[in-house]
C-alpha cells in the first residue's frame, strides 16, 4: 500500500463508514503510521489488544507471514471515540491468519475493523470472526477484503460477522470484499444483525437473573465466538472483561 498523501474521504472504499470528522482531527500524521510484524516461516505470533480511548485512534498493522507460519490477532475495541484497527496481512504458502474482534459500546462513536488479507501463495488459510454490540447511535463496522493471487490454489478463507444492536439507533455494517484470481479456492463470508433474544431474556428472568445480568450473560455468549480460537485463557478473560465492563451502567 502506498503512503497516503491526502486524508481519505468517504469515497475511498476502505474509509466508507469511517468517522471522517474524527479522521480530520487526527490529521495525516495521526493515521499514517504502520506497525510492521513479520512472522517467520513455521512460527506462530499472537497479538492481543484492547483499542480505543477518549480520543480518536487509528491503529494500522502490516503483517507478513512466512510459509507455514501462523499470525493471530485478537482485539476488543471499546473506546468512546472513533476507533479503527486496520490489518493488512500477506500469507505465504500454507500460512494461516486468525482474527477475532469485538466492537462494543454506545454513544455516537464508530468502531471499526478493516482487514486486507492477501493469499499470495497456495494452501494458505484465514479465519476472521467479528462481533459487534452497540447501543445509543454507535456503529460497528467490519470491512474485510480478501485477495487471492492467481496461483494461490487451495486457499481457504472465511469471514463471519454478527451484529447485536441493543437500542434502535445503533447500527452495524459488514462489507466483505473478495478479489479472487485462482480457480480452486474456498471463500466463505456471512453477516447477520439482530437484537437480544426476548424469549431468552424472560427465561433467564424466570430463573432469577436481573435484566442487567441476563444481558451481560447473553452478550458474553454472543461475543465469545470471536475469542474461541484464542488459547491463552488469561488473555481471553482480559479481552472479554474489557468488552463486558463497557455494558455496566451504560444502558
Amino acid at each position: 500500500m502506498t503512503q497516503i498523501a491526502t486524508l481519505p474521504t468517504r469515497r475511498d472504499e476502505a474509509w466508507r463508514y469511517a468517522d471522517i470528522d474524527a479522521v480530520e482531527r487526527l490529521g495525516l500524521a495521526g493515521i499514517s503510521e504502520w506497525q510492521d510484524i513479520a512472522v517467520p516461516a513455521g512460527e506462530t505470533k499472537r497479538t492481543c489488544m484492547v483499542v480505543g480511548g477518549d480520543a480518536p485512534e487509528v491503529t494500522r498493522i502490516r503483517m507478513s507471514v512466512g510459509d507455514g507460519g501462523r499470525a493471530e490477532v485478537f482485539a476488543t475495541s471499546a473506546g468512546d471515540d472513533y476507533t479503527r484497527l486496520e490489518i493488512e496481512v500477506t500469507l505465504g504458502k500454507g500460512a494461516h491468519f486468525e482474527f477475532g474482534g469485538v466492537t462494543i459500546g454506545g454513544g455516537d462513536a464508530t468502531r471499526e475493523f478493516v482487514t486486507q488479507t492477501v493469499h499470495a501463495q497456495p494452501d494458505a488459510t484465514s479465519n476472521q470472526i467479528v462481533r459487534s454490540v452497540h447501543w445509543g447511535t454507535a456503529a460497528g463496522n467490519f470491512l474485510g477484503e480478501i485477495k487471492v493471487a492467481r496461483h494461490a490454489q487451495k486457499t481457504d478463507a472465511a469471514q463471519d460477522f454478527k451484529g447485536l444492536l441493543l437500542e434502535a439507533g445503533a447500527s452495524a455494517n459488514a462489507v466483505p470484499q473478495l478479489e479472487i484470481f485462482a480457480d480452486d479456492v474456498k471463500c466463505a463470508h456471512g453477516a447477520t444483525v439482530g437484537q437480544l433474544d426476548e424469549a431468552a431474556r424472560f427465561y433467564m428472568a424466570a430463573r432469577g437473573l436481573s435484566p442487567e445480568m441476563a444481558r451481560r450473560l447473553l452478550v458474553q455468549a454472543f461475543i465469545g465466538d470471536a475469542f474461541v480460537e484464542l488459547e491463552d485463557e488469561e488473555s481471553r478473560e482480559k479481552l472479554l472483561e474489557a468488552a463486558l465492563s463497557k455494558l455496566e451502567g451504560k444502558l
Partner: protein
Amino acid sequence: MELKQMLKITDLHATVGEADPKPILKGLSLEVQAGEVHAIMGPNGAGKSTLANVLGGKPGYDVTSGSVEFMGQDLFDLDPHERAATGLFLGFQYPVEIPGVSNVQFLREALNAQRKFRGEEPLSGGEFLKLAKEKAALLKMDMEMLKRQVNVGFSGGEKKRAEMVQMGILDPKFAVLDETDSGLDIDALRIVGEGINSIMRAPDKGVLLITHYQRLLDVVKPDKVSILADGRIVQTGGPELALRLEDEGYDAVMA
C-alpha cells in the same frame, strides 16, 4: 390445622397482545395452600398457559384487573426475576435455548442472584457442582448434559427433564408447571413425576400443575383439581375430578 396460604388469585382478568389486546383470563380465582399440589386441567385455548405466563410476568400480557397474592406479597409489585427470588418457579412448556451459555454457568449465576436477593451467601463453584450433581442424579440426567449449552440440542424430553433439574437446584417454594408432561415418554414421565414429588412435596411448598393428562397425576397425586374453561375456574374438586375428566371428557363434566 391452620392452612398457610401460598397463592391467592382473585378475579384475575388478563389480555394478550399489545396492538389488539385479546381477553384470555376473565375473572379467574384460585387458592393454593402450603403443602398442596393443585392440578389445573382444561380444554385447549382455555387460558392455562396464559395463567402461567401472567404469574411468571412474561412481557406481552396485560393484567387488566384482579389481584394475585404470593406468599403474602402483591405478585405484580415484583419484577419477574424478583418473583423467582421470592420463591416462584415457572416450568416452561417450551424451554428456551440459550446458545453460548452452559447450564452450569446459567444455573449457578441464577441461584446466586436469587440468594443475593434474599440476603444469603453465594455458593462457591464446588458447592454448586455438588448440588447440581445431586439434582441431576435425581432426574437421572447425565452431568455431562449440564455442562452443555442451555437446552441447545436437547430433545423435547431432555428439555423437560432439564427443567426439573433446574427446579431441584433452585429449590423454589412454589412451582407453576406448564405442561411439564408434554413430549415425555412413559419412563421419562415417571422420572419427572417422581422428581416433582421429591423436590416439591413438602409442608411448606406448593405446586400449580397444569396438565392435559391423568397419567402425570397418577404419579404426582394432586390434592385438588380445577377445571379452567374460557378464562375462569369452573369447577374444583379432589383427584376424582381428573379421573372423571379422563373418562367422560370436558363437555360431559362441565355440562
